[in-house]
């Protein structure tokens, strides 16, 4: 563990190359990202942390292809990202389950866009993923009948079912209570170990980042830049309450506090 790239990166799955992004509003011209470069290896679990306004969500959107950068580009498997695609699926802070479909219907939504899958195969894949997130009993429930944690599990199953190469998560646990979030940390780690997806998660919580990721990338605000990286090589599954994890989280937090205005940091 340390703030360097000591572990050799496996073949780059996702490469962000010199990406910049401005947002022009009536009042100001905000530089959300300034010349950000970053590579994420095959099967790597990376967390982006930073104070609000550091452009971490914008960076995730650009990686997803939902937003186009002003300069630079994103390469996925050595091909430039030109738009969203089912190989890079996104999970958002709100589950955004479609209310007109039941849980199974939501999980099958993306599968319909994959050519050559029969209805029976779609059902089988959906069942398999509902099983993976522990929602088999709720396959016919509607979103409003689920708790917050169950909704995010369903959203996770929906994102995993089309077998994306990269899973992008934008503060997926921020709206959950601590206990529910802890259960989901365990689930995500279990699923990641079983599936070995490349996962990039945006969070404002240093502890959450240290619990989940192999590598924590700390971003600084205005303009958004990559400031420091921490490699976390603790054994998995990790418990967010483990003392050795707290030590690392503390160091990440100290780095984050360095960006606060001087009087607020005291």
């Amino acid at each position, binding site marked *: 563990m340390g703030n360097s790239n000591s572990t050799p990166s496996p073949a780059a799955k996702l490469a962000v190359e010199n990406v910049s992004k401005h947002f022009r509003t009536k009042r100001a011209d905000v530089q959300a990202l300034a010349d950000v470069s970053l590579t994420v290896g095959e099967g790597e679990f990376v967390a982006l942390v930073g104070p609000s306004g550091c452009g971490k969500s914008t960076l995730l959107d650009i990686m*997803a292809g*939902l937003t186009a950068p002003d300069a630079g580009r994103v390469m996925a498997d050595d091909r430039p990202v030109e738009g*969203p*695609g*089912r190989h*890079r*699926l*996104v999970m*958002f802070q*709100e589950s*955004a389950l*479609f*209310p*007109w*479909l*039941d849980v199974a219907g939501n999980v099958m*939504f*993306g599968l*319909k*866009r994959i050519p050559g899958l029969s209805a029976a195969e779609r059902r089988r894949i959906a069942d398999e993923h509902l099983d993976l997130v522990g929602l088999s009993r709720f396959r016919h429930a*509607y*979103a*409003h*009948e689920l708790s917050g944690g169950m909704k995010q599990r369903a959203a996770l199953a*929906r994102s995993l079912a*089309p077998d994306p190469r990269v899973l992008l998560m934008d503060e997926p646990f921020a709206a959950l209570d601590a206990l529910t979030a802890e259960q989901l940390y365990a689930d995500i780690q279990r699923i990641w170990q079983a599936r070995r997806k490349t996962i990039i998660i945006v969070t404002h919580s240093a502890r959450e980042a240290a619990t989940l990721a192999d590598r924590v990338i700390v971003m600084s605000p205005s303009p958004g830049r990559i400031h420091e990286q921490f490699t976390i090589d603790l054994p998995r599954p990790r418990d967010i309450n483990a003392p050795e994890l707290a030590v690392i989280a503390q160091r990440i937090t100290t780095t984050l506090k360095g960006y606060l205005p001087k009087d607020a940091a005291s």
Partner: protein
Amino acid sequence: MKRALATAVFFAALIAAWHLASTSGRWSAVLLPSPHDVLDYLIGAGGDGTLAAATLVTLKRLLVGYAVGVAIGIPLGLLTSTSRFFEDTVGALALGLQTLPSVCWIPLALLWFGQSEGAMLFVVIMGAVGSVLIATDTGARSIPPIYARVARTMGSEGFDKWTRVILPASLPFLVSGLKQGWAFAWRSLMAAEIYVTILSGFGLGHLLHYGRELSAMDQVIGIMLVIVAIGLLADKVLFSPWERFMHRRWGTGLK
């Protein structure tokens, strides 16, 4: 049960008051027939097929005109919700025409189509299109943007996105818009049938009109009751299933 009882008592009282008023002798029976006279008329007209034939003619016009109105209104509403060009052109036109009571189309329809079924259909379509279009437009605009983002990331674009995300997501607005469109179509058709005599079929509106010509108040009130009944029935048959579907899935309207 208690609620059904309240409804029954209320309407029984209403009919009793009507009966008392008609037997009081204060008003001529020509102007105020008794409930019994009206029932007699309904039984007679029901028995000789007049009522069934007129209802059939009217419903056919209504359903055909409404279906065409919906088929035009939904795609146009989707267009105006996405394209600024269509919003500023077709959308503005629809908004303007919405302020025009649909009876006002009748003189124009008569001159264009003559005393024909075409005139009838035209009036019904013009009555339905506007409100369906505006409801679809509002519905599509009110969809949480996150749904469209999720759809995009999962590779759903274009036609697939419209049919599998935008349309179902706007269902809550769409159902109320379709209902409103139905009400407008129904009102327009009754106005047209009362106003225009055409030889291709006598609808309920014509029976109402001739009731007046013949000073047959029992017929006028009888037909009015039939028109109300059809309106209620359409609501139950056409729209209630959609509303139940929606409430069940969205978790809205639960008591």
